[in-house]
């Protein structure tokens, strides 16, 4: 029925880009196709152009190159001694700040979590309006390709250390939308997921339990998603570019 998804693994890894392409727990099934021919033109504001500055100075601008940092992310090493790293991890675990970006239907259960009934604030969990202040990205449900593009950029703009939680069955294997042409089926192919919370949709209690699990993982030093993302950056980028057909943004946007 689906021959395409069961290819010879040896052959698969040979066709992938040159880095080590088997991040732990993420086994690629298919080689990424070569970048599709660009039928879509860049929007006007992203094209190379000449602008006039004050005093008539002409400046050449290439937005995709000039406005963003060019360096790929790097792996953050642990602190020099275990006791210091443990202290850091304790501090990180006790201040989980969530990016307020409701990417899917799970966002509706965030509201009760912020309010007196469930009150996630008592665990040091709070919601922030901007990626610069957040360190946890909750992908709340299905991701359409259009949102995936925005989610990647939001994720890359977050400061290290940062974590990703996939919420609901749609992030795990597609859930209800397993045959939809517009939603991705495995979140961990595109972003480094530290933890999944199952359910459609998960109750607030399940979310709280998931956050507690995440805290334990952070304290134990196991939530290393951001480092994984830096280490296997090319693999993630190849996966992302394969589904996002009109890639009109810089490769790194922080």
């Amino acid at each position: 029925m689906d021959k395409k998804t069961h290819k010879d693994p040896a052959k698969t890894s040979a066709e992938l880009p040159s880095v080590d392409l088997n991040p732990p727990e993420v086994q690629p099934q298919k080689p990424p196709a070569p970048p599709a021919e660009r039928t879509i033109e860049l929007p006007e504001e992203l094209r190379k152009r000449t602008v006039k500055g004050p005093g008539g100075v002409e400046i050449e601008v290439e937005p995709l190159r000039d406005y963003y940092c060019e360096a790929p992310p790097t792996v953050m090493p642990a602190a020099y001694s275990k006791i210091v790293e443990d202290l850091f991890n304790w501090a990180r675990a006790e201040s989980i700040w969530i990016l307020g970006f409701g990417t899917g239907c799970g966002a509706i259960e965030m509201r009760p979590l912020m309010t007196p009934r469930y009150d996630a604030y008592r665990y040091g969990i709070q919601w922030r309006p901007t990626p610069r202040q957040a360190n946890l990205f909750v992908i709340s449900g299905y991701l359409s390709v259009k949102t995936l593009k925005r989610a990647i950029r939001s994720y890359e703009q977050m400061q290290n250390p940062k974590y990703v939680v996939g919420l609901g069955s749609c992030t795990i294997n597609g859930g209800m939308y397993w045959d939809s042409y517009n939603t991705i089926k495995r979140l961990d192919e595109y972003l480094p997921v530290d933890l999944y919370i199952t359910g459609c949709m998960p109750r607030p209690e399940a979310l709280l339990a998931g956050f507690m699990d995440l805290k334990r993982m952070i304290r134990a030093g196991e939530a290393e998603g951001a480092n994984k993302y830096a280490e296997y950056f090319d693999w993630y980028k190849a996966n992302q570019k394969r589904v996002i057909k009109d890639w009109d943004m810089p490769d790194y946007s922080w």
Partner: protein
Amino acid sequence: MIELYEQLKQRYALGEISVQRFDLVFITVPRENLASLLLYLRDTEGFTHLVLLTAVDWIEDNKFQLTYLINNRESATDLGLRVIIDRDEASMESIHDLWPTAATYQRELKEMFGIDFPGSPRIDEDFILEGWTEIPPYRRDFDTLEYSRDTYLERPGRSTSDPAQHMKQLFYPEDKD
């Protein structure tokens, strides 16, 4: 509603009528008559509310059916106008000058069915999809399951059994049909 149909029939060439409910009637209309008929119904007969504009793909006949559903708020009746157009190079006159909000519907139809509405504002802009290169997804010949399998990676271990077969075994094991 029937009186209205008889009355309209004297002025316009109309196709068949099907009465769905006492307050909902569908009439087939030739495409040349649509704009003038809509204008007449809106301004004279009080059908001022455009409820929806959508398309149905009759791929067997190589036709698209466009449905314009309009509502008379005074008499609380709905009238659906069906227009049959060709599926190849499908295009239709825009009605955004009658209802500005129709432009949104027409943008969606352009993107999802590939039906062109020349002159409609921002008709060629992306509406819902972004960077879509396949055939328009709501057409019947677009296979969403196949596309999804080819494009997105699946997690191994998910098994999908045909629900009809599964339920049959569960509840009606003796049912052989």
